[in-house]
Each structure stands twice: as C-alpha cells, then as structure tokens.
C-alpha cells in the first residue's frame, strides 16, 4: 500500500518535469530504509500512469543502502531536435 502512495507521487513529479512531453523512462533511486519493494512500485506505477503522460513508461528502480527516495532523471519524447 505504501508503494501505491509513492507511485502517485512519482507520476506527479515526472509529469511536472516532462512539460507535457510523453515520458518513456522514470529513473528512481530507492534506499533500503524506505521499505518499498521495487517490484511492487513498478506494479502500481503502471496502473497509476494509465491515462497520463507516463502511460507505458518504464520505471527503473536503482536500489541503494540508505534512505534515498528520489527521481534522478526521466527520459521524454521530444518533437524538437536538439
């Protein structure tokens, strides 16, 4: 259940940084102290992302020892060539 709430926060933050562009990857750093299960996080992320700009995006969870809980980066589809 904890993972559901965290997934919502992850999707919200990713959408805010995506600026309307479709999100392909969300890379999260997760410390073991947070007691969140990566597989469970990915499961809820997929559900919460439905119907948003994160739909179909891959959630990458980098597990660490500590209390980290942050979104490191996202990858988005950009129509404009750099």
């Amino acid at each position, binding site marked *: 259940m904890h993972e559901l709430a965290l997934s919502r926060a*992850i999707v919200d933050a990713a959408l805010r940084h995506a600026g309307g562009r479709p999100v392909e990857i969300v890379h999260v750093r997760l410390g073991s102290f947070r007691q969140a299960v990566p597989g469970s996080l990915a499961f809820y992320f997929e559900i919460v992302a439905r119907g948003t700009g994160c739909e179909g995006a891959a959630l990458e969870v980098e597990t660490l020892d500590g209390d980290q809980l942050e979104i490191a*980066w996202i990858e*988005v589809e950009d129509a404009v060539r750099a």
Partner: protein
Amino acid sequence: MHRVRVTVAEGVLDANETIARANREDFDRAGVRVVNLMSAPGAGKTALLERAIEAGLGETRIGVLEGDVQGSLDADRIAHLHVPVVQLNTEPGFGGECHLDANMVRSAIDDLPLEEIDLLAIENVGNLVCPAEFRVGEDARAMICSVTEGEDKPLKYPLMFRSCELICINKVDLLPHLDFDLERLLANIETVNPDATVLTASARTGEGIEAWARWLGALAAA
C-alpha cells in the same frame, strides 16, 4: 521524435514537503502547535486523546483533526468532550488513501478554529507504514503502540518508529493476560529510536494518562 533525458534530482515526496511547510507556517502564525498522532488501527489513538482531554490539559486549548478513510465515528467521540473537532475523510475525495498527506490537511485548515486553540492533534489514519512518509505540517510526531501488537513491531516498521518523538505504549492493563515481554519491546524501541520519549499507559484504567497529558501540554507550551 527523439528522446531527451531530463535531470530531475527531486525527492519523490518534495511536493508534499512543500505543502507541509506551508501548513506549518499557517499553524505557526496562529500560534498553534501540532502533533501528528499515528498508530496501527485499534491501538487506541482516539481513546488516549479522550482520556487526555478528560484529565485536562491545564491551560492548553486543544482541537482535533480526525483522519479516517470513512465515517465520523472518532470525530463524534471527540465532539462529546466539547472540544473543536473536524473530520477529514480520505474517501471520497482523496482516493481512499490509507494515510493523511499535507494537501489533505491543507484542505481542512479553513475549517479549523486555529484562533481558539493552542494545540492541534491530527489523528492520522490507522496504519504503521504510509503515514510515516508524509509530513503534514506537524511540530512533533507521536505514535501509539499497544501491547497486543507484539514486541517485534519496531523492527518491522522502523520508518514509523524512527520518525516519532514520542512512543506511548497503550493497553498495559492487559499485560498480566498476555505473553508479552515489555522489556523486549523497550529494547527494540531503543534499537531503532534511542532518542524517543517512551511512556506506558492504559486508556482503560487511566494509568499513565497524566504523563501523556503532560507531554501534550508541554508541546503546546513549546
């Protein structure tokens, strides 16, 4: 179309923290201290609040924000004691969440008579996991741990036990009837949170209520 990487480097809960800070500023401006009261379902949050209010909190004027998934059973109990109480339900409106977050508490601030109280007790949804993650604008966190839950809980839910300033062990009147090792619970609390203030109490017999009420009063006066 091509992919670009956007550096985010943001805490997953930063948005909640920002709103929690705004709540805290509103509470500070009104001179109200706030305690976020958490526990597993049925540990005795409401009962201990009732006993503290009945025992009297000295000069402290308390108000209560009751967080529940559904219903107003707890708010009704507190209302009988003639203190201001506001019910905050996570269903409907907040997706039936199993915890309060800063935004939910923000939505209730206008309903709270902040000018008439010195201490706001926010009774969180009964749950040892999610509430620990979400600050709501509190000055202190207190958790109730009852002796029917088992001595191992601090080790199973360290995030919750670590995040609290006060841990109040409730239902100690049941100790003679249980195979419960209080010393082991205290040792486990010491392992995960050596800085916590630990009290023992029984909402049923009134044991320890004075110290619990005193802690609340001291927080209000801080």
